[in-house]
């Protein structure tokens, strides 16, 4: 077994075979592997005695799940209402220009991946950018550009 398979098996043994464990299982697997590989999805399906089709159907329904590995630095741009009226689209443009990737993509060097998020609930600090789970509030294009240069 590969390291990845071992890790997935570790997680599976913590859950019994009830269907309502499906989403928590996928969340745990993604937390460990940072994405859901086809092999991991198959293993989850087998464990819960569901079809792969069923599991993939659930996984693709929810925005949280990724099917490609993210970059070393994962950037999330908040597109909540407060962020929108305070210029989040400008921030997103800046990131796309500086990293060369669109939302949903990972840069070729594997350094950055970019995601749009509906709302972090930190509206008072709008516009908000989250890089590797650290929240940066009251962003401007210039601040965003500096932040990304720092991470390069």
């Amino acid at each position, binding site marked *: 077994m590969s390291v990845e398979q071992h890790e997935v098996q570790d997680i599976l043994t913590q859950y019994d075979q009830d269907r*309502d464990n499906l989403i928590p299982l996928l969340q745990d697997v993604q937390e460990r592997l940072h994405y859901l590989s086809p092999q991991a999805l198959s293993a989850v399906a087998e464990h819960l005695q569901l079809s792969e089709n069923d599991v993939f159907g659930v996984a693709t329904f929810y925005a949280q799940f990724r099917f490609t590995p993210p970059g070393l630095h994962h950037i999330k741009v908040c597109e*909540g209402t407060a962020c*929108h009226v305070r210029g989040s689209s*400008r921030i997103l443009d800046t990131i796309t220009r500086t990293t060369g990737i669109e939302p949903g993509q990972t840069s070729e060097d594997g350094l950055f991946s970019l995601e749009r998020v509906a709302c972090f609930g930190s*509206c008072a600090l709008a516009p908000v950018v989250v890089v590797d789970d650290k929240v940066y509030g009251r962003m401007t294009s210039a601040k965003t550009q500096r932040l990304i240069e720092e991470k390069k």
Partner: protein
Amino acid sequence: MSFAARQQEALAVWRVFDQPELRRILVGSATCGRAAGSLEVLQAFRDELAQADLEKSTALYEVGCLGMCYAEVLVEIRAQDGRRVLYQGVEPRHVAQLVEQHLVRGEIYWPLALAQMGEGTEELPAFHDLPMIKPQERIVLRNCGFIDPNNIDHYLARGGYSGTARALTMGPDAVIDEMKASGLRGRGGAGFPTGVKWGFARATPAAQKYVICNADEGDPGAFMDRSVLEGDPHAVLEGLLLAGYAIGASIGYVYCRAEYPLAIERLQTAIEQMHNLGFLGDNILGSGFNFSIKVKKGAGAFVCGEETSLMQSIEGKRGMPQSKPPFPAVSGLFGKPTNINNVETLASVSAIMEKGASWYAGFGTEKSRGTKTFALAGKINRTGLVEVPMGINLRTIIEEVGGGVSGGKAFKAVQTGGPSGGCIPARLIDLNVDYESLAEVGSIMGSGGMIVIDEESCMVDMARYFLTFTENESCGKCVPCRMGTQHLLRILTTITAGRGTLADLDSLRKIGDTMKNASLCGLGQTAANPVLTTLQYFEDEYRAHIEDHACPAGACAALIHFTIDPAKCTGCGLCARACPVEAISGEKKEPHLIDQGACICCGSCRQACKFDAVLVS
């Protein structure tokens, strides 16, 4: 141990926390505080206290959110004189000064002092007299920012769980009657009377029933539930426990969105504490009532805020809404009778059981009792989380609590209810905020997002923004919502690009009406509201885009261009540095120029300019 004895122990813990001669520092560390840097401030205090050899004689706590997000990081310091001073905008660089000047010498550090807790003085107003706080009435937020959310004793000492002790002696029917008498209506948006809802679930006979706390706060621009969960998790969990007791459920779920990791952490800690003290488990407080609570993390689907979708998601399925009837009270989670309430409703429930229905019914209006929390954000001076009595005037919220529109711009509209709500124009600012009045003007109370919009925001673009969201989040199960959101978005995009026709306006209305009447769930039924209300109140803006190919607010990139006013430009070069595409050039101290061919109309230069020299036309 009896509940009374338990309360005494908690009071002893609270007295230590609250004794005036103890040096104490409280750092507001909810998610918003942390985003503003509260953890760095907390660490700086830790280091400074250690260096000054004060760590043993000073208590340092993380607390929840006071709701004054604009003033984060907020720190309350109490020196040995017992006076509690609230400081705003604290950064790590201020910490040494705060410790040395206030904590050691007992002198207020004026540059950051905001208010004094308790009574005010001539130089420093009382917290409760601040313009943002004065019109508020805090029931749901009663403990947020004042207690350590990780300490159940703090919650107990401030009256927590006494409502549960009372309820368990009253019996479930009396608890439901109490809820009916309080007039509490569901705070998730629809406003259905909570007591009546509980009555339905109680009336369905079944061996197994469930209660669910809907903490899938998905409206962009809303963060009320997050703040309550982070600042006072026990208030919500006690409400869920009471709901379970009332309807006869033994298992409760909290369905919380995964984007709120701190809230989930605080919930899990709180549930463990409830178990340890016997507020969860078998035979709670000797009443024979058994109850347990599980936390389920959402996975990022807006439609899961709808109750039938939410239950599908807990069951491990795609979160698609189901037809009603059967209603959840008859056949809900795993086919069993289920009651679902939102976070704010449950936090109100625990307060009502503690203080009584008539006390609660004393707030608000005849049909909308109690208080409502709002997340005040957008173009407003004092962004934050507020709780006001129902029926309060919109003007009071925006001008007094929120301190008016930021940047001296003109107030244009306020958006309530998120993607399901509508835009209320400035001329209706004297509207009372209650369920009926908001519905009359075409908006909804919603869960409590309140976004202030100024003259620089385009209403067509606002409608397009919300439809981008709902089109993306529509689950695709029913045709009116799936196709309706797609068509609305396409038409709105055409209009903002200056290619719309007047016939488009009729199409928008027709599609919107169809979606309202024919969609399966609340998402589709309300998704057209942002379009319909902006059309109702701001049709002239739509017409300007179509007839004059102009965006009056100067927001739609396809219809505007930027120029620099040579009379105002000082040649400081800020705009050129801000420009992401290097479209601005000019000599130092000479007026600059924008290359119209290269300009992408992002507006960065306008934002950067300190002399209002960048014009939009």
